[in-house]
């Protein structure tokens, strides 16, 4: 379990990163927190020839307040995300999500950008960003483009990122009046990859659901929005019958991948349990 030889570069600017990507193309991988990439290197799975370390690139570790949004830099560590007063005030779902992410040592090194760019289907942060309607900022020597989270994942570990691009930040809408949120996941051991998880974000107006997103993770090849369930809930009060309907809609929509340890039926079932539990919690909070 020793990594094969690889080249290591540590540019101190984005332009330097772009140059490295231009030179090495598909042979290069971007190294941020290294919590997944280094393990893959050591296990000689998907080993890269060149690692381009972005830890010296300025601005990437910053969280910046913009009108209506927070701009969260790719190098913001999980621990910093949870501790940020801006995040706690404006996007509390993210602060609540961090304790579910792995273990303390990993949260100290792992980054928001790394999690988003990798796109592990069981990861918490991508699902939260999906629920929040965030958009990722992808930069290259040619310029910058912005892609909504719901268009970012194309398949298992497959994203809209081009080989010459770097995910530099994610833009997250600030909470609005009446906004609610919740997150939970089912794991056999605290810190494990979720067997299934759910992040919910929405807005309630006079007892009725005005908007809601339910992002499930650990149940498909990428985080998924339960749009059928959301459509059923919008404009209605969150009463037990509605919650039951939403749960059934989620169960009907899920087709989890087969896995030698956890059968799809289990993930589908607990996906429904999570919907029922989190919507129940939200209902109590709104009451």
């Amino acid at each position, binding site marked *: 379990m020793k990594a094969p030889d690889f080249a290591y570069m540590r540019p101190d600017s984005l332009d330097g990163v772009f140059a490295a990507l231009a030179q090495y193309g598909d042979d290069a991988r971007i190294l941020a927190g290294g919590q997944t990439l280094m393990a893959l290197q050591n296990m*000689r799975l998907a080993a890269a020839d060149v690692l381009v370390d972005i830890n010296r690139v300025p601005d990437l570790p910053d969280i910046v307040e913009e009108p209506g949004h927070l701009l969260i830099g790719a190098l913001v560590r999980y621990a910093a995300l949870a501790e940020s007063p801006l995040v706690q005030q404006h996007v509390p779902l993210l602060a609540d999500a961090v304790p579910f992410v792995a273990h303390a040592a990993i949260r100290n090194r792992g980054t928001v950008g790394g999690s988003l760019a990798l796109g592990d289907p069981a990861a918490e942060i991508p699902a939260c960003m999906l629920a929040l309607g965030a958009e990722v900022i992808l930069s290259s020597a040619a310029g910058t483009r912005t892609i909504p989270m719901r268009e970012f994942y194309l398949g298992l570990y497959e994203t809209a990122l081009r080989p010459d691009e770097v995910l530099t930040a994610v833009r997250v809408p600030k909470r609005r009046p009446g906004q609610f949120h919740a997150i939970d996941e089912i794991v056999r051991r605290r810190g494990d990859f979720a067997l299934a998880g759910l992040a919910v974000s929405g807005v309630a107006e006079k007892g009725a659901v005005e908007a809601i997103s339910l992002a499930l993770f650990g149940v498909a090849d990428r985080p998924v929005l339960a749009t059928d369930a959301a459509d059923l809930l919008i404009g209605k009060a969150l009463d037990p019958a509605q919650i039951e309907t939403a749960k059934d809609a989620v169960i009907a929509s899920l087709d989890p991948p087969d896995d030698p340890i956890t059968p799809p039926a289990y993930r589908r079932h607990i996906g429904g349990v999570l919907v029922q539990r989190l919507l129940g919690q939200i209902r109590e909070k709104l009451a």
Partner: protein
Amino acid sequence: MTFQAPIGSSLPRDRAKRLLAGRGRYIDDIALPRMLHLAFVRSPYPYARIVAINIAQAAAMPGVIRVVTAADLEGVVEPWRGTHNLFPDMKVPVQTALATDTARWQGEAVVAVAARSRAEAEDAAEHIVVEWAELPAVSDAAVALDPAAPVIHQDYDGNQAFTAAVSQGDPAAAFADAPHVVEREFRFNRHTGVSLETRGLVADYDPTSDRLTVHQSHQTPHQQQDLYARLLSIPEQNVRVICDDVGGAFGLKHHLYPDELAACAIAKLLGRPLKYVADRLESFLSDIHCRDHTVTARMAFDAEGRIIAMELDDLFHAGAYSQYPRSSVAEGNQIIRVSGIPYRHDHYRAETRMAYLNKPVLGHIRSVGHPIACAVTEQLVDLGARALGIDPVTMRQWNYLDDTDFPLTSMGGIALEKLSFQACLDRALERVDVDAFRAEQKTLRDAGVYRGIGFATFVDLTSIGPEYYGEGGQHISAQETCLLRLEASGGIRCYTGATDQGQGIDSGIQQVVAGVVGVPVSDVKVNSGDSELCPVGGGSWGSRGAALGGEAALRAGRELRGNILNIAGVLLQKAADSLDIRDGEIVDAESGAAHMTLDEVAAVGHFKPYMIPDDVDADLTVTARYASRGRMFLPANGLHVAIVEVDTDTGLIAFHRYLVVHDCGRLLNPMLVAEQVRGGVVQGIGGALYEEFVYDGAGALCNGTMADYLVPMAVEMPDIEVEHLETPTGTSELGAKGAGEAGTTGAFGAILNAVNDALAPFDVTLSETPLTPTRILQALGKI
């Protein structure tokens, strides 16, 4: 017999401070001049013929010193067979350090690369081309025993390796006439003992003196010395095995592994020091595994709920080979010997069958066979209680062997000296208010919360006697020796054949020596884990360190104390037996008045021997040994009580309480025994809830990483309460029985019973470990 402190005191472990400070010395901390690193090419297939091996490209790669195949090791290392002469009918195929023409399990080492660094060795290993001819693999014991199944070892006419049976009374008639019979099929899935430090060694061979020194993460240095000497044809007095700090062992480090022997052979071949440390992926593939048993069992009761008879059929397998040097029979053999043991009954039949098939070797991991025997027995008792409408506690009180029944020989043929089943249950009931729990359980059920309580009574066969392996023909010491040396300053060096893998036996032995001689514990330094310096012993496995190593230390301590007092008597012109040693001072035995200090005696003994008459025993270096006679085991006993809550929506299980009442005879250090029990319970929880190797239909491992093979973690663990009872054995002076496996032994049974009690309203019974959330929801019919 009473012993003075610090025997029986809860002192912190001598090693703890050093290990916490990061000053432990594990295998990967060792670096020798000119040392090479080894990596293996392992079979990707469970069963395949090796058609050709092309090493040309790898041999030319940077840093590579030598690429080694089985052919290169011919004449360097002998093959071996894991026999046991008490079981002469067992089929025992020959095993070799590297696979010769056929690989019989996925992960079997086939080619080794010695290079300047492990990374370079791994680079080269990727460029070795093995041409395989895959064969149809057998990966299930029942399939293996089917006459139509492919035969794994062509020297034999089938895959059945071993059977054993025990029968007492007339079980067939007893079952035929019994008013109540309960029967279940149990499944105990496959897991292992995951040590924090993986297997590893540094082998250093000097051809000029034909001397082999092996630093190894291992439990039994003297055993390894014998094996390396014999298999590598090196005079035994030239072989030294050193086991410094060992980062967990749990039984998986008391065997000979082919890859480790290959490493020693390659060190001999090359005449250079060589390091091999299994990485985590290799560990999951190549460490000894355990369990993988299917048990069908039934129990008969009379109309009042008294147990009449028990029957059990166990089917398991050894993997591809019989482990060496102990052989692989014990897990099955213990099950048929130990099942039903706490309960009075007159009719018993148990049978075990062992197969060979295409999986890694299955052998001895903490609490060999016992968790299965305990879980099967205890679930049948609970099922009987449920069928008869009797409370599980009452059921046990009625059926336990009474204190007055001992000594006796169990239905399985085990001599039981004196055990304390009733007393353990009484103590548990002082700690757990079962009536209050039942009331709360009922209230909670009405609110949709499902809690259950499970009891598991266990017997642990500890501290095996020398007859078992002596008659088995294995070179495995069940005898312990202790050497003590009084330094001129008055300090004592102690050398023991027992070994410390983190459990703290060094401290227990230190306390015995300090208590018997009469010195402060800080005046005794224990050295262990060195086959050259330490007197011959068996190391630590099978819950033996305190009972055997402790007794040898007691004997050596008594001898040294006698010699010290002999010298003091001469110097003081007093009778030696009128003197005592207390806290390092020679005192008057009656009045306690101080006469002189130990260092004054020691200085005379070392530097002025002319002051002591020749006929006075005055050796200040003494050795004593202990070997039991006429007993196979020192059975210890106890009771586990688990209270769990089952989430019937998710299938997750959470602990509310966990209590162990444990009786291992004399306690050398109650705190360390309690910690041993806690560690054992955690490992038992691992097997009961989390740990499971999953193989696909073709025999390939699906979950060989820490991400998907789940070990128990701190957050989910209960606060484990431990109560001690002390029923000393009369077979030794110290009276200690073994303690190391008790925590694991009862955990499967207690948790299974607690979960089934929690789910009683749903009328389901689970009898398969681990109790995964999927299995729970499947049993509940939710998925």
